[in-house]
């Protein structure tokens, strides 16, 4: 076909129409492959920095939070949460210790995991809430907190309430059930 014929209005319309058809087909492929896209929705955790490993080992050994932990930056404190999330098996004491020092930080961090994490990460984050806030008892967490951070049980409940509403809107029914169970446990 000659270039002059391709440049005619009818052929140009066919070319532009072809573009539209191609992109519409791509859109349909995207719509039909939601699981593929959801597979990549997960939090990426960095390994615990080498200078914080001795502190983590000390916490595991003694079951208490050293005073130096309170002087760490929020990013460094958050690294311990990420480290706990990557452990092969659930370690039960760390959440209590972390929450006792920085409850608000960990409520925010859990909320982020519940929004941006994979299904497994969300389940693990809810387990963190149970271990940190339910089993310890929130009043105890306040008493142990020496950093002057004040929060209360309603902050966790409020966060879980927001997540519950968000999960309802996004039709994540099984996740919503898990959140509801955690709320019930927390209220008890």
């Amino acid at each position, binding site marked *: 076909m000659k270039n002059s014929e391709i440049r005619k209005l009818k052929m140009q319309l066919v070319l532009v129409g072809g573009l539209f058809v191609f992109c519409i087909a791509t*859109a349909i492929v995207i719509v039909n492959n939601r699981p593929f896209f959801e597979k990549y929705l997960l939090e990426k955790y960095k390994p615990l920095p080498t200078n914080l490993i001795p502190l983590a080992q000390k916490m595991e050994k003694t079951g208490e939070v050293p005073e130096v932990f309170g002087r760490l930056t929020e990013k460094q404190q958050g690294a311990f949460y990420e480290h706990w999330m990557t452990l092969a098996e659930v370690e039960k004491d760390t959440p209590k210790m972390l929450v006792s020092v920085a409850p608000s930080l960990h409520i925010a961090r859990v909320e982020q995991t519940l929004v941006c994490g994979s299904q497994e990460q969300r389940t693990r984050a809810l387990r963190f809430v149970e271990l940190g806030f339910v089993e310890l008892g929130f009043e105890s967490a306040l008493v142990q907190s020496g950093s002057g951070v004040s929060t209360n049980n309603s902050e966790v409940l409020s966060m879980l309430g927001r997540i519950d509403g968000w999960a309802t809107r996004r039709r994540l029914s099984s996740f919503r059930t898990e959140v509801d169970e955690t709320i019930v446990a927390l209220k008890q």
Partner: protein
Amino acid sequence: MRDSVASRKAGRPPEVRLVDRMLHGLGVSARPYRALLQAYLIMDFRNQQYGRVTYSNPKDIFTPLFWVTGQNLLISVFLSALLFARVDAFFFALMALGASALVIVTSIIVEFNEVVLDPSDLEIIGHQPVPVRTYSAARVTNLLVYVFYITLSTSIVPAIVGMGLRDASWWFFPTFLLAAFACNLFASGAIIVLYAWMFGGRPGESLQEILAWTQAALMFLTFYGGQAVLRDTNDRLEMLAYHLPEWVAYTPLAWMADFVISSEGGFAVTKWWIFAASVPAAIGVWGIALWRLSLAYSRLQPGRTAWQRTTVRPLSQPGTLGGAFAKLVTRLHEERTAYWLCSTMLRRDQNLRMRSWPSLGIVVAFVALGLFSDQLDDPTVTTGRAAIMSLACIYLLSIPIPTIIHNLRFSREHAASWILYASPIENRAAFCEGLRKAITYRILLPVLVVLFAVFAFRWQNPLVALLHAFVGWLVIQGTGYGCAAAIMRKLPFTSPLGRGESLGPIAPFAAAVSSVAGLLATIHYYSARIPAAFAAYIASLFVLVLILRWLARRITDRRYAVRGPA
């Protein structure tokens, strides 16, 4: 029956006559209206501003409209794929509607001449018996078709992809398209009112040229922004969608997005009143736009076609070329002349600017990516991915240099290059050195200074930042000398630009520059944490630059002395 017989006799179907009657009722002459509209629709395929940006020539197979449609569709595909499954339906609709409105507003400004108000129309149809009302009707119909088309190209993909979101139903498709048309009609009407009324005319040529790149910039943004989102360990996009700032709820785009997501429950629960309220708003804005445009059309007078700026800035006085900084960085007067010529052309020639600046975009993108994904750390203290972007930013400074130096060959005013050939330039090698210095000091040095500031702020160590900026300076100098030796073979601004010539001929050299930069970055990475090794690396790089400088001078001296410029 009588009508259909009459229409058959007239050779037209009955519906055409109905349209004619409607047009007649509006005071519009049907025949010139149809002829004008057809001409305008065909001209839409040849829009000039986008033609310049997409480097489309009149004889190219693909028209500028094809490329613009492709860009719009690609932006919407990238954006939809990026947001799909990651955010909720409200945020998805908000972003897609916002991107569509941004594209339509910039398109209207860029294509103001072609689709809104073209004074040159008067020269073509001024002597024809076309009433102002008919002309206005044809122009406005064409404008509406244009708005419809651009809206469709930016909205069709998000409308389909949105149906697949967890919190959306198939109602997303029609409601999103309705919302997009309502938003874009309002936005386009508002921008026309703004220019036709408040600014009293048409947008400036510079603004049009800059905004013509909006689509390209949006593609760039969605591509690199998408990478940033995928690399972001803090999940900022998802958290932004989860915790939207309160003020967003008070914007018209949020109202329309609310209308779109309310359709999830079906027709009955959809907030149709939001859409219904947007219709009179769009009609109102368009009413004002039509009023102002009709006035503008009626005021079109012969001789007012010279709206384009024809005057240029006054030249410097003889003997004062370039200013104090040029005197500081240049030695011979040939160098200073070339420095001044290059600086002036970069300031004046928008085509040259637009061919040169985008190549710097990759450095800006990597700095932004590095800041966003926490990979812009100090290479002397950090290992692994955390320092990769810092090194990439330094060595990517070499990538734009071949492109910019090569593009100095071309000019729209190349026919005037005889002045350059006839001018008394005794030392043409020094003249070329002046060009290299202009690129180095006018374009890359400011980028390097910004990079130094970012490093110093990020690393909290100005000395190390300065050391890395020095390495960046050596990279720029070395690449500049390499380019002078390898690709600076003609006097500047002496060739016309053909399709593909702005990059094609230097592709192998550019690939070689990239490879050497990659190799140097690797050596830098491994030597950075060992002070002795790092010092040795910088010293070696310095020696390499000196060798390249000597080589470049020798080659350019010989090139211009023996053969003269080709």
